[in-house]
C-alpha cells in the first residue's frame, strides 16, 4: 500500500438482512484516504455515509470487501483486536455525540484512556490538554446535559482525540450546530490536523464543509458516484 495512504477500501459492501428483506447499504465502495488530509463524505440521507464510517472505524463488519488501515486489514480482525483498534487507532465523533450522561466532561474524555489502562495522572493530564485544545477546559466538571450542542460537540471531539488516534471519523459533526459553531468546529479540525497530524473523515450534509474541503466523495444509494478526493488520482 502507498505510504501516503492511511486508509484504503476494496470492493466494500454492506447488506443488512431483516428476514426476507435485504437492504444494500454500501455497494462496491473503493476508497483511498491520504495521511493527514480531511475527506468529506457527502450525500443524501440513507446514502450509506454512517454505515461507511462504522465500517471504517471497526464498529461494524462488511458483508464483503476489505478495509486496510495502513497495511492492516481490519475487516477480519477478531473482537479483541477490533477493540484495541477503536481504542488506539481510530477516534469517533458520533452524530449525537454519545457522551455518557452519568459522567463529567473530564471523565468522558478519559474513557478511551481508561480502557487503555493509562495511569490516572496521565489520563488527567491528557484529558485537560485536549479539553483546552478544543476550548472547553472550563467545563470539565460539568455533565453533558449542562452543555450546549456546540460544547458537547467539542467534548466528543476531545474524547476522540484523547488516545492520539491516527484517524478521526466524524458523523454529521455540524448537524446540530449553528453557523458560527460550524465554522468554529471546522477551524478546530484544521488546527488539530496541523498540530497532531490526524486524518479526518467527515460524513456531512453541510454544503459549506463540502465546498471548503478539497477531498470529497459523493455517496448515493451506497455507491460512490463522484470521487474528487485527492487520492482518487492515485
Amino acid at each position, binding site marked *: 500500500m502507498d505510504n501516503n495512504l492511511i486508509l484504503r477500501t476494496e470492493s466494500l459492501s454492506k447488506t443488512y438482512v431483516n428476514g426476507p428483506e435485504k437492504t444494500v447499504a454500501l455497494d462496491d465502495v473503493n476508497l483511498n484516504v491520504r495521511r493527514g488530509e480531511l475527506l468529506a463524505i457527502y450525500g443524501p440521507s440513507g446514502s450509506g455515509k*454512517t454505515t461507511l464510517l*462504522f465500517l471504517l*472505524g471497526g*464498529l*461494524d463488519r462488511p458483508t464483503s470487501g476489505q478495509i486496510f488501515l495502513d497495511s492492516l486489514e481490519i475487516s477480519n480482525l477478531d*473482537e*479483541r483486536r477490533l*477493540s*484495541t483498534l*477503536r*481504542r*488506539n487507532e481510530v477516534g*469517533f465523533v*458520533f*452524530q*449525537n455525540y*454519545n*457522551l*455518557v*450522561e*452519568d459522567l463529567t466532561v473530564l471523565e468522558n474524555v478519559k*474513557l*478511551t484512556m481508561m*480502557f*487503555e489502562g493509562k495511569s490516572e495522572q496521565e489520563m488527567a493530564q491528557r484529558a485537560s490538554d485536549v479539553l483546552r485544545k478544543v476550548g472547553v477546559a472550563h467545563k470539565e466538571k460539568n455533565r453533558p446535559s449542562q452543555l450546549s450542542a456546540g460544547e458537547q460537540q467539542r467534548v466528543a471531539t476531545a*474524547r476522540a482525540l484523547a*488516545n492520539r488516534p491516527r484517524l478521526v471519523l466524524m458523523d454529521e459533526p455540524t448537524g446540530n450546530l449553528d453557523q458560527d459553531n460550524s465554522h468554529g468546529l471546522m477551524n478546530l479540525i484544521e488546527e488539530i490536523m496541523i498540530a497532531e497530524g490526524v486524518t479526518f473523515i467527515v460524513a456531512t450534509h453541510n454544503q459549506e464543509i463540502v465546498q471548503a474541503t478539497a477531498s470529497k466523495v459523493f455517496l448515493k444509494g451506497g455507491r460512490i458516484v463522484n470521487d474528487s478526493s485527492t487520492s482518487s488520482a492515485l
Partner: protein
Amino acid sequence: MVGLAALILTFVSVQSLVSTLEINLVGSVSSLGGQIDVWSRGASYPLVSKIPESYADAIRSLPGVTLATPVDLALLTVASDEALVAGIVPAAIPRLFSYSIVKGSMIASNQSGILAMGNSLALALGTSAGDEIQLNGQSYQVSGVYSTNTWIDNSVIIPHVVAQQMIGMVNGTSMIIATTQDPRSIDTLIGQIKTLLPATDAFRSSEAPSRVSPLFASLETIAADITAIVTLGAVLGIMNSNLNNLRERMRAFAIFKATGASYGQIIRLVLYESLLLGILGTLLGLGISYVALQFVSIPVLQTTSVRIFLLPSTFIYATLLGISISLVAAIYPALRIARVRPQEVFRFG
C-alpha cells in the same frame, strides 16, 4: 441492594434462631460436667433417657472409676412456669461442676422441700434464697442461688431421691455421669460400660452435644431450605434488576464499547459494579440484622427466654453469601451487555 440486605437479614435471623436453640440445648447437656455420660440406648437427649439407677453401682465397681452418679432431668412446673429440674445426689454436686453461691447455700442433704436455683432462673422468677416457691404443685424453699455461667443457671437442682419420686422414676434415672482417675482410660472404660450394660450408650461427656444434634437435623434442614429458596429468589430478583438496570444504560455500554472497551472489560465493569453494590447491600443487611436481633429473644422454656446468639460465623457466612449472590446474579447480565453492538444501539436506540 435493598433486596440483598433483606436476604442477609433473613439468613442471619434464621441461622441465629437455629444456632441459639442448638447452643441452649447443647448447653443444657454439656453443663453437667463429668467425663463419661451413660444414657439409655438410642436416646438423643437425657430428658427421654431412662436407665436403672443400679447401673451406677455397676459402673462404680469398674476399676479406675472415681465417680458414677445418677442424674435425673425433667421439665417441671416452677412457680407457674416450666423449667428444667436436675435431680442430683447432693454429695456429687461439687464433683460435677464448679459453682459459686450468689446467696444462701447449695442443697446438702436428701431433705425434701428444699431446692437450689440458678441465678438466671431466680432473676426471671424474682426469687431469692429463703423464698418459698411452688415446684410441681408442692411448696419448696430456695436454699440458695448459684451461678455457674453455664446453661444450668436456668435450672433448679433438687436431691436425686426427691426427683425420683417427683417424676415417677423410682429406682431409675435419666443418666449416669462418671469420672475416672486417669483420663487416658476413658475410652477403655466406655468400652467396658458398653459390654457390661448393653442397654446403654456410654460416651465422652464432651460428645454429648453431638448426641443432641440429630434433634436439630430437621431444623437445620428447614433453615437450609429457607436459605436456599430465599437465595434463589434473591439471585433471580437481583439478576432481573441488573438486566433492567443495564438495559436502561445500554447506550452507555455501547459508548464504552465504541470507544475501545473490550468484551472482557465490559464484563469486569459490570461485575465490579455488582460486587460494590453487593458489599454495600451486605453491610446494610448485616447492620440491620445486628441491630434488629438485639431486641429479639426466644423462649427456650416458659421460664427461660434467651437472647439470640449472634455468632461471628453466621456473619461471615452471610457476607460470603451476599457477595457470592451479587456476583452470580451479575454474570448473565454482564455476558448479555458485553455483547452489545454499538452500531445497532446508535442506529435504533
